[in-house]
């Protein structure tokens, strides 16, 4: 059964079928190339579909409904809160498999490892072996949760973001270790579901890559749901007491007890077993596949996209990276927008979303910024919906003309940000948000309010050609 068949040849071989791999494969197939996708699991879609985005967002929907209904869900098995997610995942799985098939992409099941820069060995689950050659190889193997040894992740009492949704029931208390997107999303979600949440991280604030006003908003909302954020806290050990509580010890001597602990302290690139040395593909100091701005690795003909190349590790960004990696590899026209122009959505409760530069980034680039703010309590639709807590920040150049970024915290933020994204792409100035009429009442009104706020401040700033040139250079 172990007899190896001759290597099969493809124009493009994609390793991994998550968001990046899938888009890379489809882009390549649409360009008329013969494409294969190698997937180690039975289902396609990667962790995004099976342990990450889709299941967690399904649970989040329950948390949102819970916020409205105020029902005690503590007796509810988590699987019942994930009702329909199995069907959603299966439907998504079937859809993606059909999409690959429709585009003539061959799906190969097994684990890939490089034999040379253009040849991969394939080990199947039944122990049989094969090999595949590709003129272009795109690495899109994703990432997995980092599990520091000292924190004893056992997937039973101390969990990671892959196993957290395997819980049978909602814990009464949950300690979330970490301050990143995954940690904050789960902290917000379980707090909204009624769990007593403690979030702790080494940094002085969670979601530290965001505008401080947004993270302050996040912490306040967490507190409103009965949770708390403990800053500057480094966990050094966890120990289950044998019946109901996990004790977590911190470097500063404090100990926190909780029913369960979620360790969400970053993710590691899935490069184990790929034998990247055989292909000459280098890693960064943090263990991600090293790529340049065209997503080329250190070996010609090998590209990488998605979580495997590091943050932001967002499905939307991964998809675009996958598409662009294929475009670069095949010499196709690549969108001129920088990937940094892509929006980021954090599915906390309420949501946070951002695109372009934040206030700090604008000041760093241009030596100043004019910021317009709209608070959701000022918006009629917010009053009607009960979404009165939220903030939209419109960031403009020092002259208050050109919009350079948008940050939003509050319900519908991940949808609202797309208006700003298109405005950035179209290079709209602040006045466009004032002059264009939006439906009333809508949350989009926040853009007008923020734009008016900038217009009011213009008197205190001046636009110069130098600044305008600087803005054009950055954007």
């Amino acid at each position, binding site marked *: 059964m172990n007899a190896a068949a001759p290597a099969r040849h493809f124009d493009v071989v994609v390793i991994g079928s998550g968001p990046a791999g899938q888009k890379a494969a489809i882009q390549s197939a649409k360009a008329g190339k013969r494409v294969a996708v190698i997937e180690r699991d039975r289902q396609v879609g990667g962790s995004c579909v099976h342990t990450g985005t889709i299941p967690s967002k399904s649970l989040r929907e329950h948390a949102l409904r819970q916020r409205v209904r105020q029902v005690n869900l503590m007796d509810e098995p988590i699987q019942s809160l994930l009702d329909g997610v199995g069907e959603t995942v299966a439907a998504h799985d079937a859809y993606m498999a059909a999409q690959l098939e429709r585009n003539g992409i061959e799906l190969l099941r097994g684990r890939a490892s490089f034999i040379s820069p253009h040849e991969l060995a394939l*080990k199947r*689950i039944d*122990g049989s072996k094969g090999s595949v050659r590709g003129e272009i190889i795109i690495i899109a193997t994703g990432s997995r949760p980092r599990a520091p040894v000292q924190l004893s992740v056992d997937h039973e009492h101390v969990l990671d973001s892959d196993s957290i949704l395997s819980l049978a029931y909602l814990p009464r208390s949950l300690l979330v270790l970490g301050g990143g997107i995954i940690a904050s999303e789960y902290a917000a979600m379980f707090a909204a579901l009624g769990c007593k949440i403690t979030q702790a991280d080494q940094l002085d604030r969670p979601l530290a890559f965001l505008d401080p006003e947004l993270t302050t908003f996040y912490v306040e909302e967490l507190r409103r749901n009965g949770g708390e954020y403990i800053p500057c806290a480094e966990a050094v050990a966890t120990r289950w007491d044998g019946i109901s509580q996990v004790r977590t010890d911190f470097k500063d001597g404090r100990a926190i007890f909780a029913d369960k602990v979620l360790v969400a302290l970053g993710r590691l690139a899935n490069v184990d077993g790929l034998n990247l040395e055989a292909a000459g593909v280098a890693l960064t100091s943090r263990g991600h596949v090293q790529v340049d701005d065209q997503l080329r690795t250190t070996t010609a003909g090998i590209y990488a996209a998605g979580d495997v190349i590091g943050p932001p590790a967002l499905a939307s960004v991964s998809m675009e990276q996958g598409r662009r990696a294929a475009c670069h590899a095949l010499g196709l026209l690549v969108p001129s927008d920088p990937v940094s122009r892509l929006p980021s959505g954090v599915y906390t409760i309420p949501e946070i979303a951002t695109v372009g530069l934040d206030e700090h980034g604008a000041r760093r680039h241009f030596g100043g910024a004019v910021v317009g703010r709209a608070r959701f309590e000022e918006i009629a639709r917010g009053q009607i919906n009960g979404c009165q807590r939220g903030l939209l920040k419109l960031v403009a150049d020092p002259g208050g003309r050109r919009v350079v970024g948008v940050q939003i915290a509050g319900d519908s933020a991940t949808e609202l940000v797309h208006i700003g994204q298109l405005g950035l792409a179209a290079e709209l100035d602040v006045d466009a948000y004032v002059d264009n009429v939006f439906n009333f009442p809508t949350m989009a009104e926040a853009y007008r309010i923020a734009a008016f706020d900038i217009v009011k401040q213009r008197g205190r700033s001046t636009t110069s050609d130098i600044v305008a040139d600087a803005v054009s250079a950055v954007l």
Partner: protein
Amino acid sequence: MQSSAQTAADPGLDRVLHAALTDESLELPPPPAVAVEVTRLTRADVSDGGNVDTNAAELARLIQRDVALASQVMRVANSALYARRSPVVTLPQAIAWLGMREIRTIAYAVAVQGQVFASTYFRREMTELWRESVITALFAQEIARLKRRNVESAYLCGLLHRVGFAIVLARVGSAALTHRLTPDPGLVLQFAAEHEAHVGAQLAASWRLPPAVVAAIANWRSPAMATESRFEVMEVALARQISDELRTPGAGGELPDSMLGPVSKWMDELSIYPDELFSIMAQRAAIYATAESFI
């Protein structure tokens, strides 16, 4: 109730087997020593100034080791008296829900049952059944841990997947004593195997066992038939195959032919590669040692 062709040839045995399954008060035979130990631990909690935390932890471990007591705890936690809006699905949850006082009450009840079944006819077979269930439970939980599935649920499924067999065996033994008959153990085991699924299903329904356990009881021999909790059923089926395979001296070095065929299908569905299977099999010594300590 239909008994098999072989047993029908013996009217006395047929009567015993029939009697074994017509008594509606089906109970599992618990090892009395465990129940006594539970009683000691829970008493120390309230009256002897015992260390509550230590006793609670020890109690949880003790209950998890015993199929009869674990079943009783689950049954009581889901009984009408204690029922919540949704069934209790794990032992730690049940223990936390019932509290030490109720656990002690259950332990007393189990201890009485233990005395009733102390002279049971099939002690050796029951011990082997228990060992097999524990080993399956321990391997199933390692499979679940590997696949980031619920570890507690996998353990419970493994522990209780042959609960129907245990009931039939115990009842036949009890009936044999009552009727002063000497049934052929081979025939009784065959009879128990034939009826374990529906007896187990009966018990699962009356005890309100979690759906995954119900599915494991009904389908562990043929996971492809499972329409619900398929993953958990395959965990149990694969755990049993690992357990059976490791009984062979020298096993575990490479993927044996016996684990291809139907098992490779389960490995395929569970996305478990040979090296991952070996990593689970490599825990054999620890798992067997743990299982022996349970007996």
